[in-house]
């Protein structure tokens, strides 16, 4: 699957990592709904780091649509309330 990290380009991530990333995604949804800003920040950083380490960056010359879009690491807590709700970014 192709994941775009907003502001950082696209990554090709093997499908086998989907569940692992979904667990972090769901954890972020919980932290945001609990109002835990510190926990949210560190888990979002972890999600982005995991995508980068599991995947490989797509060449700039490739023009392809993404399957998933992950927000930037500096996403504010207020903005996060709009993004990380319900199932989050990764569908369960």
């Amino acid at each position: 699957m192709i994941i775009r990290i907003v502001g950082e380009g696209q990554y090709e991530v093997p499908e086998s990592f989907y569940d692992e990333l979904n667990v972090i995604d769901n954890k972020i949804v919980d932290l945001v709904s609990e109002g835990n800003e510190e926990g949210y920040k560190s888990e979002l950083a972890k999600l982005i780091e995991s995508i980068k380490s599991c995947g490989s960056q797509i060449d700039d010359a490739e023009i392809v649509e993404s399957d998933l879009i992950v927000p930037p690491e500096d996403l504010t807590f207020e903005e996060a309330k709009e993004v990380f709700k319900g199932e989050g970014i990764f569908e369960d």
Partner: protein
Amino acid sequence: MGLFSRMETVVKSKMNKLMDRMEDPRETLDYSYEKQLEMLQDVKRGVAEVATSKKRLQLQRSKLQQNLEKLDSQARDAIKADREDLARLALERKTTLNTQIQGLDQQIEDLEKEQEKLVAAEKRLSTKVEVFRTKKETIKAQYSAAEAQVKINESVSGISEEMADVGLAIERAENKTENMKARASALDELIDTGTLDDLTSSGDDIDRELAKINSATTVDLELEKLKKEAGK
């Protein structure tokens, strides 16, 4: 809907409206390419804007640093002249200045990161725009209008996502620099008038009270150090 999805929807709906209006879908390719070049110009402007803001903050920092050195020398002179009251005043101002400098250092670091991101985004988009240009000429030359539609949709969708991403990066950078500009203007005024309040202080009454105590302790320690140096 997330912030990026909103941005992407705007870009894509503009493209779709355009495709509906054009008689030959291949015209869409030329128009989309024009839009991409405009976006590239926007990114270049965004990078320049961030660089200007950073330069301004760096200038302020060097002004404050000069003031800091002046206060330090004043404190030493005051001790030599047995004017502990003046030395204390100079050191109190020095503590406030130090806090300001730390705040500026953080802002400069943030802008550095912002600048790096935008430069990378510009490089990504620039490469994609060049690839798109080659693709569009191939599509126009090799396909009939009907056949071209599928190819056009693929290319335009992919590049629209990139444009939305870059658009968002510019918007976020602009918001950050706007906030910093306002603070920088306020700080400029304070530097000019010589009345430096602690702009970087935040938090509640307890935080501020603790900061005062901390500052007083710092001043006392520094005062003792200067006295020892001066043999007083």
